[in-house]
């Protein structure tokens, strides 16, 4: 705990971070989104912190939360270090519904790429500077963000065709130095023929 106090003092001084008192048993700091990127960089690289593992990025929707006042959404970053035993912390950014944007940290942690995509998919929080912000779990034709509290619980959305992942795969192969020499007819299907029977009526 003494560790945390020391770290908190540094974070307060450098990035204007505050301790989140709602988290009674853990160590959570609240930070403004302008300082988030610098703070994460500090936590990753500084000798006193060395949080080198990003465990998770979590979205929170506070709509209808009991006795809560403040911005509707929050994004939490769960951090862990391999250098010291049992040292974990969380960084929390509050985001309002009207300006639902957070700077991306995909350049700091590689895993943040997909985790941010997931939060974007489920909550609609936009991560600025993300290299490829697409839906991760839900299908391409999905509308809305299902983990928001105002998403109707029994709403179902049909997908009319398979998600076609080949262009993405080819782009990835090409980025690794492969070259697409030829495609068979099955790989480049005629849309009408390919989708026959699977289309939404």
């Amino acid at each position, binding site marked *: 705990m003494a560790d945390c106090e020391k770290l908190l003092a540094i974070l307060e001084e450098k990035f204007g971070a505050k301790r989140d008192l709602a988290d009674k048993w853990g160590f959570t700091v609240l930070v403004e989104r302008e300082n988030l990127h610098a703070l994460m960089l500090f936590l990753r690289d500084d000798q006193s912190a060395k949080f080198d593992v990003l465990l998770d990025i979590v979205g929170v929707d506070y709509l209808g939360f009991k006795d809560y006042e403040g911005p509707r959404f929050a994004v939490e970053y769960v951090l862990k270090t391999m250098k010291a035993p049992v040292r974990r912390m969380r960084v929390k950014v509050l985001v309002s519904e009207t300006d639902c944007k957070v700077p991306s940290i995909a350049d700091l942690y590689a895993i943040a790429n997909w985790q941010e995509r997931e939060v974007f998919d489920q909550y609609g929080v936009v991560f600025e500077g993300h290299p490829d912000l697409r839906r991760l779990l839900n299908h391409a034709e999905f509308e809305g963000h*299902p983990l928001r509290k105002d998403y109707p619980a029994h*709403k179902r959305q049909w*997908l009319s065709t398979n998600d076609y992942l080949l262009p993405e795969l080819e782009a990835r192969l090409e980025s690794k130095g492969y070259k697409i020499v030829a495609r068979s007819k099955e790989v480049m299907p005629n849309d009408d023929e390919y989708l026959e029977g*699977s289309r939404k009526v």
Partner: protein
Amino acid sequence: MTALAEKANIITSSLDFIVNWGRKNSLWPFPYGTACCAIEFMSTETARYDLSRIGSEYVRFTPRQSDVLLVAGTITYKQAPILKRIYEQMAEPRWVIAMGACASSGGFYDAYCTVPGIDHIIPVDVYIGGCPPRPESFFDAMFQLQEKIQDESYMKARAERVKEQLEMIKAKTAECKENAEKAVKNAVSCGVQTIKEGKDNLMKKVAFWKE
């Protein structure tokens, strides 16, 4: 004849019986396993339970070669078009078994992403309850499917299938008949005309020679 009878290689039977007998004892499943039900299916295939005892010897991993589509596991909306496409690729006759609570009804996934039962997408022949069902339940489902197949009629299905063709052939036959009748009538009336003319000529000649 006697030689053939001695070899005893002839049986008489109805076509329906022999076709159904063949079909129900060689049901090759296509395992569409997406969850823990597929694990139970694997143990059904192993020597302890041994699904090959009832002729489901081979598990085919291509829809073109299989008869039974075995949907074992949760189907999400993202998965649904793929399942439908697999079903469409199977050759007839084809049957579907929905294995477990998820495939039958969506199970406890009452959520935005799960299809509430695969019968929203494709027709299902047999449902199996359980989460996951034991291999015995799977056997029971196969027996039920076999009973169902026994009641099917190949000839009736065939009649249904070639109904249009038959009607076309019937119509064509009727048309040909009509044409032939017309031609015959024409020919007969022509013949009658010629005979009449000949008779008239003859009468004229007789009259002439009489004079």
